[in-house]
């Protein structure tokens, strides 16, 4: 009975929590495979195995899912990559250099990450009304404009995590490189960047997930069905009058959206734990 006292509670707790974590996902899976495809007929456990919902998803001209998928993936990849690059540059400066305004800069970044960009959404809309007139390529209904907006948040929590991680990389490494005649750019690109790959992978993944799920800014920004992202487009799929009928299709879309992120997530899980806490503990 010692096993029960020592290990039993652990398994009990873990099984309960795992069920809590998994049942909505199981529901999505069974709804996606549900041949009837409605919300009302979707059960927790799969009642059938049909790919009808996936077929409907790709064959429906009202919901250009493939187009949204391409839009979202392109936007998220490019934005995540660029924002990580901007962030790691700033983190390098904050971690390795001493300059006037460094303390203020760090504290400001800490504060800025508390304020979500969409709190200023009214101002953003007015700003981009003007931008749409001047530079239509970066105005409403354009991926370019949305990309620029997302870049506004590049120096936030990412920079903080990366600065924390950079602080753990011994300074002696770049000092010895400097003695050997390396320029600051060579040190940054050849020595620092390869050493901080784990945290770049983690923050990149978090940025990627964040942009895929970003809804509010994109929803006021993208109004043309062809330029919508997955979040905006799939939201429309569950409009009031079609919510019941389209649920299977929506669940299929959710699964397809989740597969790449879940895959990469599980692959990088080890780094995520160390990356998040290293940044947090070291500040």
């Amino acid at each position, binding site marked *: 009975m010692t096993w029960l006292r020592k*290990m039993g*509670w*652990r398994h009990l*707790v*873990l099984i309960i*929590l795992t069920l809590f*974590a998994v049942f*909505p*996902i199981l529901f*999505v899976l069974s709804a996606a495979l549900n041949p009837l495809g*409605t*919300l009302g007929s979707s059960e*927790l456990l799969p009642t059938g195995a049909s790919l009808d919902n996936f077929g409907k998803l790709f064959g429906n001209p009202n919901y250009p899912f493939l187009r949204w998928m391409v839009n979202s993936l392109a936007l998220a990849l490019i934005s995540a990559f660029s924002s990580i690059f901007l962030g790691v*540059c700033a983190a*390098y400066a904050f971690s390795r250099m001493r300059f006037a305004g460094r303390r203020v*800069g*760090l504290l400001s970044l*800490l*504060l800025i990450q508390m*304020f*979500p*960009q*969409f*709190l*200023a*959404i009214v*101002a953003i809309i*007015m700003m981009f009304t003007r931008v749409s007139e*001047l530079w239509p390529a970066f105005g409403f209904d354009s991926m370019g404009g949305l990309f*620029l907006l997302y*870049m506004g*948040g*590049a*120096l936030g929590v990412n920079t903080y995590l990366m600065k924390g991680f950079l602080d753990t990389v011994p300074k002696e490494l770049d*000092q010895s490189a*400097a003695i050997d005649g390396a*320029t600051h750019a060579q040190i940054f690109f050849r020595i620092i960047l390869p050493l901080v790959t784990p945290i770049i992978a983690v923050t990149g993944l978090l940025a990627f997930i964040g942009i895929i*799920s970003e*809804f*509010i800014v994109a929803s*006021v920004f993208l109004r043309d069905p062809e330029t919508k992202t*997955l979040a905006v487009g799939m939201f429309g799929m*569950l409009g009031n009058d079609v919510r*019941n009928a389209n649920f299977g299709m*929506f*669940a299929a879309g*959710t699964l397809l*959206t*989740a597969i790449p*992120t*879940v895959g990469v*997530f*599980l692959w990088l*899980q080890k780094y*995520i*734990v160390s990356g*998040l*806490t290293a940044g947090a*503990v070291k*500040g």
Partner: protein
Amino acid sequence: MKTKPRAGNDSPPSGHRRALPRPRRELSTGFVVSRILVLAVGSAVAFYAAPPLIAAESWTGLTVLAAATALIAYVYLSRRHLPLKYLVPGTVFLIAFQIFPVLFTLSTAFTNFGEGHRGTKEEAITSIQTSSVAQVPGSPEYNLSVAVRDGELVFLLVDTATKQVQAGTATGLEPVSGAELGLTGKVLSAPGFQVLTIPQAAARGAEISALTVPTAAGAIKANGLSRAFEGRAAKAYAPDCDCVTDSATGQKWTADPDEGAFVAADGSRLAQGWQVNVGFSNFTRVFTDPRISAHFLSLFAWDLLFAAASVLGTFGIGLIAALALHGVKVRGTRLYRVLLVLPYAMPAFAMFLVWRDMFNTDFGLINRVLGLHTDWFGEPVSARFAVILVNLWLGFPYMFLVTTGALQAIPSELGEAARIDGATPWHNFRRVTLPLLLIAVTPLLISSFAFNFNNFNAIRLTTNGAPFSVDNTTVGGTDLLITYTFRLAFEGGSAEFGFAAAISVFIFILVGIISALAFRRTRYQEEVYA
């Protein structure tokens, strides 16, 4: 660091080093290429952005662009200002798309900007007059040809009485010479204009019917694609009384500079107003307008509760899960871990919608499994319970990951020492593990609180603020301040941007204060400077 940049190989050794200026570095290929690259990108952006600004005569914009380009060129071409080279790219975006909108929000909060209060007083007067234009007997008629000049739509008008040819644009009339008239009395061609064919014009029908050419007596509007008429404005503005008078009914609206609107003696106002500075009235309205102040406090209280419950709940669940897997070898650890973090990897926007539909009254899984017919989002208590539950589901895997990492970082010797000294497992956790853990995760708890305080998606995609009471459709039982603001600005018929901006400013301040207080209580601030 004692080393100086190395001098070029060919520089001769010098006897008086102290008199020498900073040793020159050789111009390496990388140095030259990187400078050329920066210049190329910088000038490409500037040359792309400048022409539309010049065309729109936006000199302020052009000045800002020039200054920014010059600053960037200076930072990257000079050898000095090393930190700036790394900070500028992100900072440029930060200023343009984060700090500037915030300042803009702040300035909007002091205006009545919104539906019906968008432009200047002159624009409002023009809009009032042109929108009241109606054809009256005896007003001049024109033969219309639609043309394009420099990409802009123009009316080529032939007066049916005098045969005089004029070009009409949104700014007014101007004479046209050298026009060739057809048999129907319409302009066939005119130098400088590209006359549209009827099918071409039909394709731009909406633009044509929207175009109003202001004249001294009223305005010219198209009537179909080949005729136009000059109508009289029923409402006219008179500068001497600063009022608008309706010539048909004789009603009079006087300009109110504080309200930015034309107001009649009976209190009615014209729909077209203009933007004025209203001082702090948007801010005081939150406290003085009883319809808003009562709700504002309850919104704020619920927002705090929602954020606190989300943070403590996710942390609690995450910690329990992490503790269950910590310290000893549990069979199936890897599988448990994978399954427990799954919610974090799922697309959050989609899972909010899935949860919303699981709570659906008629078709939802929860009602069907439990055999109920509860309208979960119909009562404040159940709706609040539901949104917190959803948020716990989405948030606890993050806390699980974080606490797992933090627990692993706590040296196990501490726990062992405590056990040898006779501490029970509970004491050990309470007095050793938890305090150490909190030091590590408090900053994350604070930013998680700030995030949830403004967790727009969690409400917008689930209840969308429901339930609403019958007498007030702007404030719902689960509305956070941010979703309330959003509804004020975009979803009500009124579009009160100024007031919405004021509430945004309140949110900025509240979050700032709460975070500052929380950070003050941790050692975090000291470590920031390290």
